[in-house]
């Protein structure tokens, strides 16, 4: 059991994702067909045999989901969902992608940034503050020792909690938009971002 074999398996699953899904479907279908044939050979009518084979097999969707988790794909699926959410949010907030140089109009937020950067600790470190006239994003970095679906879930949860803390620091003119988490490819470095937009 080596890191290399895990990494190889993960990469193959990522790069050949559609093939992996087809293979899983074919493999589970083979099992159901073989089981049905065995039951039919024991003089059980075909329809009843197929029903019983499915019942004995259990929830195929659940097994497939657990199969993806076993290959480390659940974290990637979570990341993709967050990225889609983040991109949709950015698309609705033009200008937010540029790192902010605070304008005169936004001087009042400087003190807020001071408070937000003060939230850095041994776990989180403040990275940047990005804003447009109508939206803002505060970003923290989290360094984890490993990349697993469990760590990913923890980081995802931390992003939501951090979003709550950040939004608590903002004035009532801001509407919280939640937190998103992402991972820098091939590392244990996660970024968590708290989002808000002007009411």
């Amino acid at each position, binding site marked *: 059991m080596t890191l290399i074999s895990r990494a190889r398996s993960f990469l193959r699953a990522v790069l050949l994702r559609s093939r992996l899904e087809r293979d899983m479907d074919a493999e589970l279908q083979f099992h159901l067909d073989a*089981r049905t044939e065995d039951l039919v050979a024991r003089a059980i009518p075909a329809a009843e045999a197929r029903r019983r084979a499915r019942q004995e097999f259990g929830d195929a969707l659940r097994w497939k989901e657990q199969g993806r988790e076993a290959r480390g794909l659940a974290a990637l699926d979570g990341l993709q969902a967050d990225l889609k959410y983040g991109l949709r949010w950015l698309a609705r907030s033009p200008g937010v992608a540029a790192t902010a140089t605070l304008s005169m109009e936004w001087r009042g937020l400087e003190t807020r940034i001071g408070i937000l950067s003060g939230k850095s600790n041994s776990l989180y470190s403040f990275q940047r503050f990005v804003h447009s006239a109508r939206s803002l994003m505060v970003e923290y970095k989290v360094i984890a020792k490993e990349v697993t679906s469990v760590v990913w879930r923890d980081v995802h949860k931390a992003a939501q909690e951090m979003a709550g803390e950040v939004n608590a620091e903002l004035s009532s003119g801001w509407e919280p938009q939640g937190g998103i988490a992402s991972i820098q490819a091939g590392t244990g470095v996660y970024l968590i971002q708290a989002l808000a937009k002007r009411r």
Partner: protein
Amino acid sequence: MAKQADVLQGTLDMLILKAVSLGPLHGYGVLLRIQQISGDRLTIQQGSLYPALYRLEHQGLLSSEWGESENKRKAKYYRLTAAGRRQLQHSTRSWNEIADIIGAILETRPEEI
């Protein structure tokens, strides 16, 4: 037929490694072999085999390739890797040690304390 028992949590991986160590098998074949070896005394929720097989393959303990089944259908066959063989030996030793300890505890009589 003897009374059936559920597979103990955490032991499914070991049973799969053992079944596959006796020769390459597809997923359904793994189920049949475990049932055969146990004399049909173990019940396994059939679909749960697959996440376990994928996990063992991900860990490099099993390898797989598509082949033709006994009924001429395309099937995915699993075989034990060298790392899987070492893991099976380690798991077997640990299981026997634990079984000895638990067995001794359960056999203890009051006068022996």
